[in-house]
């Protein structure tokens, strides 16, 4: 499924993924391919994107505020701020 992470200043991540874990306002949500249409508020925390195009590597992004939207196998994370977590 396609995943894009957009912060107020720029598009932070865009690509294919096989799993996404995101911090919703009341706890973590996991999104797998073909998830039902879903929209929720984001809290603060780390988004984990398991990425197929980079050989199963996991991308971690610190996000705060905004929302997450899933429809037609497209996950869109629109956060007030989003930045890669230093590994």
């Amino acid at each position, binding site marked *: 499924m396609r995943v894009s992470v957009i912060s*107020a200043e720029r598009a932070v991540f865009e690509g294919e993924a096989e799993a996404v874990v995101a911090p919703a306002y009341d706890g973590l949500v996991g999104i797998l391919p073909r998830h*039902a249409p*879903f929209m929720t508020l984001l809290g603060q925390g780390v988004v984990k994107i398991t990425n197929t195009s980079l050989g199963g590597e996991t991308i971690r992004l610190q996000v705060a*505020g905004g929302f997450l939207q899933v429809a037609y196998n497209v996950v869109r994370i629109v956060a007030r701020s989003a930045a890669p977590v230093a590994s």
Partner: protein
Amino acid sequence: MAKPRELKRRIRSVQNTKKITKTMELVSTSKLKRAQDRVVGARPYAQALAEVIAQLYSPELAERFPLLRQPGQTGRGKGVRRAALLLITSNRGLCGAFNANLIREARRRLEELEKQDAHTELHLVGKKGISYFKFTKRNIASQRVDIGDRPTLDHAAELAKPLMERFSNGDLDAVDVVFAKFNSAVSTPPTTLRILPVTPPEKRRSGGREAKAAVNYILKPSAEEILEQLLPLYVQNQFYRALVETAAAEHGARRTAMKNATDAGSDMLTILQRTFNRARQAQITQELAEIVGGAEALKG
């Protein structure tokens, strides 16, 4: 005819000025590039927010959100009674008519609001606007000069917060922003945008998108609460967009102004150089004539 030495001095002065304008042009070009990237980078976020708000928005919900309240719906008399106008200008000059255009647009808008009997307070960003309205002795509600070339979302939030609060409390009926819309580096018309009350963004009309809008989402916690969180973000983002676009437009305007100055300098140099050469040649001819004349007289 002017003396060659004076001409030489002027040539040197024009040459130096030209070096400065040329450098400023180059600096603005590179700053413009970066500012432009920020304008483009901010677009997907604005679009995503607008789309979602359009999807969740319904007129029934609207009445419950103070940020969507249209003036005159509250029963406190019709129309806008108290408005706020935020004018964004640059801190620095040497950018042609850029600031003058923005100030003119702001004055036009102020007049318009005052004609509607709206008490309008003025909020200013940028030294140029501040010095103009200080000069006209108008009351300024707030002013700040610390937002430079690189406006951040935090700057926008600081601007948006007090205005949003006062709008929600009913202290204000409308908030307008005057900024330079960045269409391209050469087209940056001064624009007035009504930020509050929020005009719900329209749903996209193209076929594929409409199908998407009809999706039944699982909403957590609820459409109402999501909207409540996203509306302030949307307003904030509008402020942010205005700041970013104005910053980019400023560099575009400065680049054009400096390019014109450099070109004018080149033209002036050609003329001055030509006049100088002619004066020098005239002097040599005269000296020669004097020597020849003198020699003739000695022979005599």
